[in-house]
C-alpha cells in the first residue's frame, strides 16, 4: 500500500530527459538546414546588390506579367477547387454509392502522378495533334501554350488539397447534425450554410491555403503546357527559372523572394486566424 503514491507521481511520458533533448535537437537541426537556411539564402541573394536592384528585378515588364499571371491563375483555380473539393468530400463522406472507392483513388491521382506527366497528358489531349486538337482548332480555341492550359494544369495539380482535408473531418462528424437541422425545418441550403460549413471551416481554410500555395508555386505541369512564352505564358516559378538560367541571379532571387513571401503571408494569416478563434476551435474539436 505504501508504495502506490510513488507510482501516482510518475509522468505520463517515461522518456529520459536527455533523450528528449536529443529529439528536440534533431528536429531543430533539420528545420534549420531544410527550411530556414534555404529561405534565408533566397532573401540574402535577392538583396546582395541592395534594395534597388531587387526592386528592379521584380518590376520589369516580364516579371510584372508573370506576377499578374500567377495571381490570376490562383484566383480562379482556388475558388473552383473549393467548390469541387466540397462537392467531392460531401459525396464521399455523407452518401453511400457504387464506385466510391474509385472516386477516392481518383482524387489522389494528382498526388501520385508526376506533374510533368500531367502536363504532357494535357498537351496530348488538347494539343494540335491531340484527341480534341482538330475540334479546338476548328473552333479557334487555344488551350495549350495559353492561359486556359495553365489554368487546367493548375486545377489538376491542386485538386486533391481541399477534398483531402475535408473528407476525414466530414466522415468523423457524420450526418447527425445535418439530419437534426433538417428535422428542425431547415432547407438543404440553410443546413449547408449554417451547420456543414461552420463544422468544416478550419479544415477548409487549411486546404485552401495549401491549394493556394501550390497553385502559385506549381512548376512542372505548367512548364510543359505553357510553352514558356516570355511575357505571355510565364508564371512566377517559370520566370524565376528562366532568369536563373540567364545568370540574372538578383532578378531571379528577388522574384523567388516575392513568391516565398506570398507563401509566408498565407501561413501568417492562418496562424492569426487560429489565434484569434482559438476558443471556438477548441469548442468544435472537443465533444
Amino acid at each position: 500500500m505504501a508504495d502506490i503514491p510513488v507510482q501516482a507521481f510518475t509522468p505520463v511520458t517515461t522518456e529520459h530527459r536527455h533523450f528528449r533533448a536529443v529529439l528536440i535537437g534533431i528536429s531543430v537541426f533539420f528545420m534549420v538546414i531544410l527550411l530556414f537556411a534555404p529561405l534565408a539564402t533566397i532573401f540574402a541573394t535577392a538583396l546582395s546588390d541592395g534594395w534597388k536592384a531587387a526592386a528592379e528585378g521584380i518590376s520589369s515588364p516580364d516579371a510584372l506579367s508573370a506576377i499578374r499571371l500567377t495571381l490570376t491563375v490562383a484566383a480562379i483555380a482556388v475558388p473552383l477547387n473549393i467548390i469541387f473539393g466540397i462537392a467531392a468530400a460531401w459525396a464521399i463522406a455523407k452518401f453511400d454509392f457504387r464506385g466510391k472507392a474509385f472516386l477516392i483513388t481518383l482524387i489522389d491521382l494528382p498526388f501520385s502522378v508526376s506533374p510533368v506527366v500531367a502536363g504532357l497528358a494535357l498537351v496530348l489531349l488538347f494539343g494540335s495533334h491531340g484527341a480534341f486538337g482538330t475540334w479546338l482548332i476548328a473552333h479557334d480555341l487555344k488551350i495549350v501554350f495559353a492561359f486556359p492550359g495553365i489554368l487546367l494544369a493548375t486545377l489538376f495539380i491542386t485538386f486533391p488539397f481541399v477534398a483531402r482535408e475535408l473528407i476525414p473531418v466530414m466522415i468523423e462528424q457524420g450526418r447527425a447534425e445535418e439530419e437534426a437541422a433538417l428535422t428542425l425545418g431547415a432547407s438543404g441550403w440553410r443546413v449547408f450554410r449554417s451547420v456543414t460549413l461552420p463544422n468544416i471551416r478550419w479544415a477548409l481554410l487549411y486546404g485552401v491555403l495549401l491549394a493556394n500555395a501550390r497553385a502559385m508555386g506549381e512548376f512542372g505541369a505548367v512548364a510543359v503546357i505553357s510553352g514558356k512564352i516570355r511575357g505571355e505564358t510565364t508564371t512566377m516559378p517559370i520566370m524565376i527559372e528562366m532568369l536563373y538560367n540567364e545568370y540574372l541571379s538578383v532578378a531571379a532571387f528577388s522574384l523567388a523572394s516575392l513568391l516565398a513571401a506570398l507563401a509566408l503571408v498565407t501561413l501568417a494569416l492562418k496562424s492569426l486566424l487560429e489565434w484569434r478563434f482559438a476558443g471556438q476551435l477548441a469548442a468544435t474539436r472537443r465533444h
Partner: protein
Amino acid sequence: MYIDIDELAKEFGTSRALHPVSLSIPAGALVALLGPSGSGKTTLLRILGGLEFPTSGRVLFDGKDATGMSVQERRAGFVFQHYALFRHMTVFENIAFGLRARKRRERPGEAEIGRRVNRLLDLIRLPNIGGRYPSQLSGGQRQRVALARALAIEPRMLLLDEPFGALDAKVRKELRQGLREIHDTTGLTTIFVTHDQEEAMELADLVVVMSMGRIEQIGKPADIRSRPSSDFVRAFTAA
C-alpha cells in the same frame, strides 16, 4: 395528432430492416418501441420523422397520407441517440435554430425568440446555460437541451431515439420523470425507442415490442406483462 402506420416495409439493398408492419397510435399517447438491437426500431422512427423513406406502405398523420411528406414539412421534434447538438453554436442558438430556420413570414422577432428559448430552458430546468457550448455540458444536460431544441419548433409529435441510452442509471431515472412531465404538459404524441424493458414498462402508455423487423405485440405495459403473445415477448420482458 394520431398516427397510422399501414403495412410499412423498408429494405436496405437486399436486407429487410422492416417487414410490413401496421400500428395505430392515438393522439397524445406516450409510446415505447421496445426491442433488441437490430429489430428495426430506429428505422421505423426515422421513417416517421421523414429521414428515411419506406420501400412500401403508408404513414398517415391525422388520417391524411403523409408518406411522401418532406422532413421539414412533418414538423416532428426529433431527439437523436447522441443528441446531435450543433457543436459550433451555443445552447441558446441550438434551441433557437428551428425558429430562425422558418420562412420570414412565420419567423418570430428576435425578442420573441429570446423569450421562447428562455421559457424552454426553464422547462428543462437549466435556466443559466444558454451561453455555453455543447462540449461544456454533461451528458444529461445535453439530452435535455436536445429535447428543448426539438420542442422549440412547436412540433406535431415527439420522436426520441434511445433518449437515455448513454446515461447512468440515476440520471436515467430523473430524465424519465422529466420526459413524462413534458409529455403531460404539452400533450404531444410521443414515441421513444428503447431496448430497456423496465424503462418502456414504467414510462409508456403503450408498448410496441419489436423483433427482427416485425411487431411482436402491441399493448399496455400491464397486458404485455400478464399476457405475452409469444415466447419471445415473454423472454424479453421477463428480465
